[in-house]
């Protein structure tokens, strides 16, 4: 009996269960075996031994968000590339040319972002 397409994915669900189950069991075990003697100094966030100044829930550099945006654009592009790469030989010349145009668009996008200075982290 050959596997149906869906059945080939069953092991993933199983490993998900076994993996998180293993983590859960180990953490429970550590919970039971470990001591529990909290005090105020222990429970405060580490700041090199001094009393923490302010909160860590603060504003953060916008650079990180711009990188995240760039990631989304280019990662979705990679998602488009994957199915095409598998079928490239069957798609023939038309497929090649289309993909070259697609990649060229993205390279132009990268050049634009580069020119705009988004990639210069130090500034």
């Amino acid at each position, binding site marked *: *009996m*050959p*596997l149906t397409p869906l059945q*080939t*994915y*069953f*092991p*993933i669900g*199983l*490993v*998900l269960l*076994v*993996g*998180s189950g*293993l*983590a*859960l069991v*180990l*953490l429970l*075990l*550590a919970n039971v*075996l*470990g*001591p529990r*003697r*909290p005090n105020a100094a222990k*429970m*405060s*966030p*580490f*700041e*090199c031994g001094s009393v*923490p100044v302010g*909160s*860590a829930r603060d504003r*953060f550099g916008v650079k*990180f968000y711009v*990188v*995240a945006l*760039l*990631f989304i654009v*280019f*990662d979705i592009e*990679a998602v488009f*590339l*994957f199915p095409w*790469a*598998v079928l*490239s*030989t069957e798609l023939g010349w038309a497929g090649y040319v289309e993909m*070259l145009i697609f*990649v060229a668009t*993205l*390279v132009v996008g*990268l050049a634009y972002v*580069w020119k705009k200075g988004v*990639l*210069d*982290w*130090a500034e």
Partner: protein
Amino acid sequence: MLSSPQRKPFSPRAVLVITLAVGVLLFGALFTGILVLTAAIKPVMIAAFLRQVVGVDPATWPHTTLVTWVSMAITALILLTFGAVISGATVWWEMRVSARMQSRIGYNRAGAGGFLQWIADAVKLLFKEDLIPAEADQLLFRVAPYFVMTGFALTFVALPFGEGLVAADLNVGIFYMVAVTALVVVGILLAGWSSNSKWALFGGMRAAAQVVSYEIPAGIAIMVPVLMAGTLSMQGIIRAQGAWPWQWFVFTNPAATVAFLIFFISQLAEGNRTPFDLPEADSELVAGYLSEYSGFRFALFFLVEFGNLWVMAAVLTTLFLGGWQIPWVSAADWTAARGALGDLPGAGWWGLQLLSMLVMVLKTLVVLNVIVWIRWTLPRIRIDQMMNLCWKYLVPFAFAAFVFTLLWQVLLARVPLLATFTGFIMTGLFVAMAALFGRQVKANIAASGDHVDLTNW
């Protein structure tokens, strides 16, 4: 000070024997388990096993599904145990190598050569207090290790160990690998944010920016072997390569060599390995996103970080270095050794599987060792250099390699011999470079008045 010398319960010889026994038994049991079970959980094999060994008809027997599920669960458990054990062994190897590279002693207390240290550490961490900072986001702080752990565990579903030795040969194999390893960064980001510590937040944000950036060149570099193999399946990509170096993807296409380097660097960055260990940078961020974690929650992060080295090395071996392919054994030989598909395979087939596993494991260990060398050779780079390297060098070069491979594949369709020709030239170049490197190292050692000493292990 101690008035009497510390009492040693075992003689050095006994310690050596115990260490060897633990090592050989542990790895022997795990590799045997992987060899037998990953091959045996295929429905065809279970059906053959039930018919020939148990003596029941699998189609009508009521417990066929149960047997399938139980054997799959055992396989999953063995694969995860392997992940944990190889992670510990990697820590040991890394500590020994780094000690040699820095003229220190390194692990030498628990077991011969300190080999049992990682077991002692794991047991110790089980008995440590598990702290959650008072102002931390309780839920996210507790959930983060599960993301990291499942992201690591899931990679073992599609990770090949040999010709028939993969838990599930998914048709989207490499795409699946990229997808599930991304779960780890979710865990890291959650850990950094939820700790409510400035160090952890910085580490988490750096990790997010770094992993997310390097996903791009890695994703495009993966496209090169996918294009050459015409499939996303891990086993399919290996089957499209040969056993000899000049038949590996890394040497049969000049762009694939570039893709290999890009993918290797990106993997280092995604695994937060030096020179890209900015998220954990212990000299500036204490321990980055791990700062507030203690006890076994910390141990899970640590396990995944080192276990990922094996995954990294195995994926590199699969994509570019010919995977488990054995010299002189062709696809036809595999089919012949397998015999009738409805029967259990013979000893010859199992022998071939064992050989293929040996080849895969050896190649993976070599790559893993290179990753360890790199960590103790290169200094950490700055965050702006990290970003520059990714977006201004790796991404454009990855695009170039991709487009070159497009044209290369068209060319290969006309002139198939070109791949063999390139393979020989590139392999020759690589051997020449390796020889030059070896000669230079030898000259450097001689010039410094040192000598190679392998006895002091």
